[in-house]
């Protein structure tokens, strides 16, 4: 904190006092009629705009949500106990907005842009309204670039493109946030000089924590810092202790920051963790504002709540700079019920979903992605050619495996083909297991999947698959690094590389020490 020099103070005082005589401040006011539960009803404020910020006494801010015939419904961003009936409310003539700029990277802020990480104030040059209309058709183009999550199962089978909206859905404790965090951590490579050489543009990340425990948010920050991912990430925190209105606006604030990067021709990734809590917060304040409840007591516009947010994700056309905003909303289901109101809504809005299952999680398949019902509707176009080529049969093999899985317990009674399908499936499942905070670069994923789908793992015991994969990468990096180089550079898998891969893997299998 900079000290104030006495001469500075007197300069300000002089400036203020010089206008003392003539300065007449004109402002609009209203009177608080009713206050409570984070809602205030105000009489007056006749020219106020919808979603304008208004100022209450004691520095409490509010946002106008309802404009009625003779009163204004307003949500409070602060303590409602500081406000009493009859208080004067001032207009600010400013709609709710969020500061944007590169200086937000590495910081934790609340949904109004105030830093909450104790690293001092942030100087902002620009504010943008939190509610912005999504772009039209002309400004967009189809998703063309991949957004690598670093998770093999996702990048191979449920690829996500830059500008896509992919839902992460699952019960509590199934690793939804872990998938999101791994994705953020994997973007670290895109900020390196090496990535620039291969024509991969950096991805800036925004993690919006809505209704999360403050301790969880602290943990997320610590993890991201540990992996050096905070440098290109902003966390918008609306913990469970913050008032419902702040939780409600937090995803929009995050999207505004994401749009800032997008509109400047950069790439951004927004994670909304999670939208079911945001919907609950919105339900709370809608009911308090006496809007009629509908299904599951959510208000009628809860679909629009999420659709207008997710529509802001986009890939800009080249004329607009070609930036992108990828959205990864997270939804928590109760007891695997994906047909509840909010999950079905968000599923229908997004371009696909990654479904995480507690059964798989408990069986040790982590990330616990159910590839059967997880889809990506547009990402395939954005997958690099090499991955597309090797992963084609992966989904099929796994589907066949799942179909026959029930018979696995009959063991040797089965015919040869079935046994082979089962063996291959089990190895593929093993291959797609992956530790947390350990993203795998795409070229390694290609090699692993290549080995898996082309039957190279048949001889390897299921328990050894992970070790085999790790050592295979070490071996190939040493013996023929040009394979990786070629995939990374050309993003294709040409015949020459395939041959090299085949011989390389075959050589390694002979050297591999099986353990029991």
């Amino acid at each position, binding site marked *: *904190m*900079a000290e*104030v020099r006495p001469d*500075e*103070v007197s300069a*300000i*005082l002089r400036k*203020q006092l010089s206008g*003392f005589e003539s*300065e*007449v*401040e*004109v*402002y*609009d*006011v*209203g009177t608080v009629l009713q206050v409570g539960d984070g809602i205030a009803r105000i009489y*007056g*404020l*006749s*020219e106020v705009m919808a979603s304008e910020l208004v100022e209450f006494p004691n520095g409490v801010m509010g946002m106008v949500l309802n404009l*009625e*015939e*003779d*009163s204004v419904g307003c949500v409070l961003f602060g303590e409602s106990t500081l406000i009493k009936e009859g208080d004067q409310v001032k207009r600010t003539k400013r709609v709710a907005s969020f500061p944007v700029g590169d200086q937000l990277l590495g910081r934790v802020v609340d949904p109004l842009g105030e830093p909450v990480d104790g690293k001092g*104030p942030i100087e902002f040059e620009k504010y943008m309204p939190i509610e912005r209309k999504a772009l039209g058709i002309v400004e967009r183009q189809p998703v063309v670039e991949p957004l690598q999550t670093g998770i093999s199962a996702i990048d191979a089978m449920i690829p996500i493109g830059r500008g896509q909206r992919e839902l992460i859905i699952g019960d509590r404790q199934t690793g939804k946030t872990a998938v999101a965090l791994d994705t953020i951590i994997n973007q670290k490579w895109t900020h390196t000089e090496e990535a620039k050489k291969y024509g991969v543009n950096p991805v800036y990340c925004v993690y919006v924590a809505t209704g999360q425990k403050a301790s969880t948010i602290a943990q997320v920050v610590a993890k991201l810092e540990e992996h050096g991912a905070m440098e290109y990430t902003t966390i918008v925190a609306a913990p469970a202790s913050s008032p419902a209105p702040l939780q409600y606006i937090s995803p929009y604030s995050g999207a505004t920051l994401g749009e800032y990067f997008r509109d400047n021709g950069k790439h951004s990734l927004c994670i909304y963790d999670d939208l079911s809590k945001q919907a609950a917060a919105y339900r709370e304040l809608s009911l308090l504002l006496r809007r009629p409840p509908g299904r599951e007591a959510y208000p009628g516009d809860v679909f629009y709540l999420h659709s207008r947010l997710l529509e802001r994700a986009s890939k800009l056309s080249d004329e607009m700079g070609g930036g992108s905003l990828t959205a990864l909303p997270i939804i928590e289901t109760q007891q695997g019920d994906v047909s509840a109101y909010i999950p079905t809504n968000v599923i229908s809005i997004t371009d696909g979903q990654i479904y995480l299952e507690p059964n798989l999680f408990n069986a040790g398949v982590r990330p616990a992605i159910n590839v059967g019902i997880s889809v990506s509707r547009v990402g395939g176009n954005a997958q690099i050619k090499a991955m597309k080529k090797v992963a084609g049969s992966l989904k099929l093999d796994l589907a066949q495996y799942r179909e026959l899985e029930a018979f696995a317990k009959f063991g040797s009674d089965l015919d040869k083909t079935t046994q082979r399908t089962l063996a291959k499936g089990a190895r593929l499942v093993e291959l797609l297991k992956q530790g947390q905070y350990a993203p795998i670069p795409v070229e390694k994923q290609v090699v692993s999947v290549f080995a898996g789908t082309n039957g190279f793992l048949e001889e390897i015991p299921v328990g050894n698959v992970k070790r085999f994969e790790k050592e295979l990468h070490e071996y190939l990096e040493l013996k023929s690094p040009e394979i990786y180089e070629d995939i990374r550079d050309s993003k294709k898998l040409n015949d020459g590389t395939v041959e090299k891969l085949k011989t390389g893997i075959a050589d390694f299998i002979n050297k591999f020490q099986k353990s029991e």
Partner: protein
Amino acid sequence: MLEYNVSTRYAVALMELAEEKKSFDQVSTDIEFVYNTFVQSKELRNVISSPIIEQQKKTEILDAIFSQHIKTDALNFIKFIIDKNRDDLLFSIIKRFVDLRDAKLGVASAEVYSAVDISDDQKNELAEKLKEFTGKQIKAQYKVNEDLIGGFKVKIGDKVFDASVANQLSTLKKTLLSETR
């Protein structure tokens, strides 16, 4: 809200009726008289809006207070409201009528707060300026509020013209705080 809608409906009805009968001026002075009486007497407001007191009694009270001062049109209107079981809304209906009339005639009511009593000359000058500014006739009420420290504050409808020392000081405080933060 219901109250607002109902009050408007009654007030507009009275206005139209008065215009039809060509007694608009008379009715509006009468209603304004009633309004002022209500504003000054909290007891009267309480009695009229109280559900415990019978309507018969209320009519008698209103008769006793107003029959000497206002014409039958206005008095009948008040009684009619009591008769219609809208006694709790009587004050808001009358207030609404005054508001609507002011809007119609282009009169704005202003509340002027000043730190010290201001002279009649100053009042006239201020009213003149406000008239210039708003383009409306100004009906001002003057109040002394020592919290302002100095200067004055005018409230017209939802607009506040704040030229008080207190406001300047709070602005100064804000500026200084934001500079040092």
